[in-house]
């Protein structure tokens, strides 16, 4: 009898659907969107929706994610982040890059670092959720809910250019989704492939 399936060992969509979602807090130590700190939520609206074919969220123009240290009182750490930024291209913005690779970004992992990801939001989103993409293929946890980081901004919502600022705990490749909801509501997802490196 099968029990407690993990997504990574699923051998078909039958097992994937029954797998346990992965806790986003296993990966992310802190996340802010436009300066607003996200909150952990067991969300019931994350996975099963009628989806817009067009995502309201995208990377912002040709801007690249960059690394900053949280140790701003330590100039050696500030310089280390500058050195990392010079030595790493975090996003390939070439217009000739095939579309399926444009979602891939490199991020620096570790509690000493914050990665700023430049995003652009079309329209106004009243709620944004961040989670691991593969969670959305499951039926959720025992309460049919999904571990996400939620961002809300009162009546103002989120629109235009902004940074998603994150601190990562782990190294690895992580397919991610930023989920957006308008007041209508219209739901859409923005897919990213994070490669978290030292």
């Amino acid at each position, binding site marked *: 009898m099968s029990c407690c399936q993990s997504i990574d060992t*699923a*051998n*078909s*969509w*039958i097992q*994937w*659907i029954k797998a346990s979602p992965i806790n986003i807090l296993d990966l992310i130590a802190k996340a802010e969107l436009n300066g607003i700190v996200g909150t952990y939520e067991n969300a019931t609206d994350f*996975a*099963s*929706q*009628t*989806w817009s*074919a067009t995502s309201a969220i995208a990377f912002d123009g040709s801007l690249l994610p960059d690394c900053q240290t949280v140790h701003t009182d330590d100039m050696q750490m500030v310089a280390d982040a500058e050195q990392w930024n010079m*030595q*790493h*291209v*975090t*996003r*390939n913005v070439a*217009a*000739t*890059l*095939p*579309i*399926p*690779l444009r979602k*891939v970004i*490199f991020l620096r992992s570790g509690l000493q670092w914050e990665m700023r990801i430049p995003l652009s939001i079309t329209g106004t989103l009243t709620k944004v959720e961040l989670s691991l*993409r*593969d969670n*959305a*293929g499951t039926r959720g946890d025992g309460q049919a809910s999904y571990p996400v980081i939620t961002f809300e901004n009162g009546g103002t919502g989120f629109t235009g250019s902004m940074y998603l600022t994150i601190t990562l705990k782990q190294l690895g490749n992580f*397919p991610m*989704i930023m*989920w957006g909801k308008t007041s209508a509501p219209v739901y859409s*997802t923005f*897919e990213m492939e994070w*490669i978290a*490196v*030292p």
Partner: protein
Amino acid sequence: MSCCINIGEVIDWYEWDDAKPMEITDIVALAELQAGAGGGGYGSKVRATDFAVQTWVATAVSMIQAPTVRTNGTDKGELVADAEYWMFDHKTWNSALTLPIPLRKVIFLRAGTKWRNELRFLFPGPVATDVIYLALRDNAGTRGDAHGAYPVLKWTSTGSGITGSVQLYLDLKRPGRYHVVLWVKSKPTGTPTPAPQYSMYEMEWIVVD
């Protein structure tokens, strides 16, 4: 000094650019396309120089049926039954309209040269397809091999080109998780003949036993 970087080990786009492309035939033992009057047959292993750097348009290709598995050993009842058992307890594609779009490209396939996977796509037209490559997605982020070329499996259309339902048959060598693309070059018609358009249909293959 860095040399001979594998795509799986790169730490940023500088290194990815310099990494060595991976051979699609490390995974694929056989790939056969059937596209009706548009042509088909076994894919030719070629080094393509037009695979990676193009002006791209969004793909019009879609998957229209869950992948199926049958055995190549059709003379052995046990293998025929094994393929039926596998199909009974494996759901290869989640086609639910409520599934978020980024997960709709994920399909499960069966590894092993005893098994033939069938994938079915729709090439909707109205512009027909002239050339199809099957290749590993991540190769397109590199600068290619020493000659700026990329390992692909290639099909060239016959007649007026490929449109409609297309079957792709695959025998796969090993389990794993692979990002694979169908690279598509259109076959425009008209006077003067417009420039061809290039697109990629992305798939995430989870190849299991």
